[in-house]
């Protein structure tokens, strides 16, 4: 394998591993803040225990989110130095703004929140967790603005052999960025809602601390439902945006080969990129792809064959990841609706509780699949239409990257296992007795 492919794999490993931890951070910080606010408002000690219990799980998870985030910033320079030179003017400044605006806030106040339960008034303490929750999410906003710029570069001019900033407002208000942010954080909130429901379900099945876990469950069910429904809606908008700005990605997501009008969507197909067709196509819904992509049954949708072979993304990976993401998305909407209906006494529905326990890993899979669609679907471009991934890589020896990739895989596997072990250990242990 060459340096480009190795660096790609390394970045994929680093970013996908990072994204095993970030979503729970984003959502659980908000849920913890909600529990603590409820404690301040009602004085109900169960909510204080909830803030402490879910907050502890949040912290275990947060640690890995932070350290793996540093890795990503480093990697732009270490592995993608030509990319960094080419777009640092825009991309680098967004990352730097993220750090000054959000990352400091959350990192500084995490320490404060941990160490001041008995030192400040409950209201002030709840304020600290809100700072952390908001800062985490603002941090996600800026990172997604940076990623959205790679998906749809705006507000730049090509000058001095690089992309230079021309219109800052255009960059930060890019429609792609707004949609990508809403789509990604909603996914993170769904994940966190399912996490809390799943852990609560485990305890409710065992009749542990029933009142406590009912309360936790109730808030999480509402949280998950709101964002699961919203996700279906904004997922559609995101799809249309991709159709408009990234025709090759759309074609790969649907494994759509021939440019045509009034294009159907196949509920089941198996792509065969070698032969530039689908080996199996079942259940066509007439005009559905045209409709979903361009809000018009007769709209023309470009097929992959219309693009040079070296400008097409890997079709099968993109296609299957997209299917997994969308399928799970509908599943979450359905299950969270069910959970919400039964939220008053979830413990009366053991089947639902079991389903929720087994559902804990699913949002993780959906989110990773989503990132694969976004990033693999953008290939061979690192910045869509502007710079190819193969032109972005650093001057490195294959051995250097092979070694570092191996090190990443080993270290991340160990840390990932430990982290999930601790999460499950403390999740099972339950909250401190009242």
């Amino acid at each position: 394998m060459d340096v480009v492919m190795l660096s790609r794999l390394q970045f994929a490993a680093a970013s996908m591993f990072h994204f095993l931890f970030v979503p729970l951070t984003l959502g659980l910080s908000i849920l913890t803040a909600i529990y603590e606010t409820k404690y301040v408002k009602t004085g109900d000690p169960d909510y204080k225990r909830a803030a402490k219990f879910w907050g502890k799980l949040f912290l275990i998870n947060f640690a890995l989110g932070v350290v793996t985030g540093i890795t990503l910033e480093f990697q732009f320079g270490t592995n993608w130095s030509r990319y960094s030179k080419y777009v640092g003017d825009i991309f680098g400044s967004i990352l730097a703004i993220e750090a000054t605006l959000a990352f400091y806030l959350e990192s500084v106040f995490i320490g404060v929140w941990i160490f001041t339960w008995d030192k400040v008034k409950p209201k002030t303490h709840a304020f600290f967790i809100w700072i952390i929750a908001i800062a985490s999410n603002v941090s996600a906003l800026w990172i997604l603005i940076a990623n959205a710029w790679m998906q749809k570069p705006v507000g730049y001019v090509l000058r001095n052999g690089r992309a230079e900033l021309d219109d800052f407002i255009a960059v930060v208000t890019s429609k792609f960025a707004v949609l990508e942010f809403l789509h990604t954080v909603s996914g993170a909130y769904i994940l966190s809602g399912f996490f809390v429901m799943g852990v609560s379900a485990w305890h409710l099945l065992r009749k542990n601390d029933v009142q406590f876990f009912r309360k936790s469950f109730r808030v999480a069910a509402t949280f998950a439902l709101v964002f699961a429904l919203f996700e279906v809606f904004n997922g559609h908008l995101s799809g249309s945006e991709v159709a408009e700005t990234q025709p090759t990605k759309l074609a790969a997501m649907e494994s759509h080969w021939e440019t045509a009008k009034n294009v159907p969507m196949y509920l089941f197909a198996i792509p065969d990129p070698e032969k530039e067709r689908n080996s199996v196509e079942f259940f066509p819904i007439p005009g559905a792809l045209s409709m979903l992509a361009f809000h018009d049954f007769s709209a023309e949708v470009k097929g992959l064959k219309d693009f040079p072979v070296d400008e097409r993304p890997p079709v099968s990976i993109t296609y299957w990841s997209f299917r997994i993401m969308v399928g799970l998305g509908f599943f979450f909407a359905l299950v969270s609706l069910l959970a919400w209906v039964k939220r008053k006494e979830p413990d009366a529905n053991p089947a639902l509780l079991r389903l929720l326990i087994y559902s804990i890993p699913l949002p993780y899979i959906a989110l990773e699949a989503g990132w694969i669609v976004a990033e693999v679907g953008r290939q061979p471009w690192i910045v869509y239409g502007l710079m190819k991934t193969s032109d972005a890589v650093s001057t490195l020896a294959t051995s250097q990257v092979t070694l570092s990739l191996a090190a990443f895989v080993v270290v991340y596997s160990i840390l990932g296992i430990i982290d999930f072990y601790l999460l499950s250990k403390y999740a099972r242990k339950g909250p401190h007795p009242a």
Partner: protein
Amino acid sequence: MLETIWFILWGILWAVYFMLDGFDLGLGSLLPVLAKNENERRIVYNAMGPFWDGNEVWLITAGGATFAAFPVAYAVMFNGLYSALLLLLFALIFRGVTFEFRGKVESQGWKSFWDLCLVLGSFLPALLLGVAFANIFQGLPIDAEGVFHGGIFTLLNPYGLAGGVLFVLLFMVHGSLWLAVKSEGAIHERAGAMAAKLWPVLLVVAVLFLAYTYGATRLFENYFSTPILFVIPAVAVAALLMQRVFMGQKAWWKAWFASSLTIVGVTLFGVAGLFPAMLPSSIDPAYSVTAFNAASSPLTLKIMLGVALVMVPIVIGYQTWVYIFLRGKVTKKDLAYEEAY
């Protein structure tokens, strides 16, 4: 002009990073020497507990600001120092999770493993950052294309290693002083004694490094052409001497501040000597990456300056507040908290 302002900001960001993370890196390196039992080890952890994360963000910002304001310098530096930086990264990863993981399983082996991660994860960054900066002061083998000709062993030259030793000592003294500030009883005494013991070694190394710098680098050229700059090393030396005075008076906070000032002075001494180069080339000075040939567009620099002028004081404001708010000593009572490390 914008480039010059950003060069100064770049230097300040690194200086503040070394000043803040310096004490927790130094303290982490000294854990086995300073803490003799589980209780004392936990005091060490909790002395850094609320602060280390916020401190480390200054590294992210220093890196991020380099990326934003001087993308070429960022690309050349991170690409060229690949192996060293990844080593640094892995050290920081293990160190970072140590705080959260260590206390989560009641087992001696588990705790000892994470203690080892803390020690290595603190010592290696201190050493590597010193080696990296000394090599930058000295010049890196980069060609006209910004390609680095060498590997990790190129960096382990005598001057680079001297820089590593200097940083380790600076941080260890800094960390011992912090522990003296934050603790009481036997461990407090030990921390103060450690600072006093390391200080003369630091003094000797600092003097030798300064002299070595004269021979091994071109940093002094700026100083001779603009003598007012000598104020910076003078402040560093004065602050270093004041440390000893304050230690003698057992004025630990003051000694820690003097140590902070020493670290800032040492960093800025190097940065001011470099100007306008950020990564001087040892092959040919004409290949050097400078604040001018590495800078972003004026628009980006202006927007970033606006962000920095508004946000950095705010950050300093709330971070200072946290240091003041949590200024008390770490006691047995603090260790009883459920959330303590």
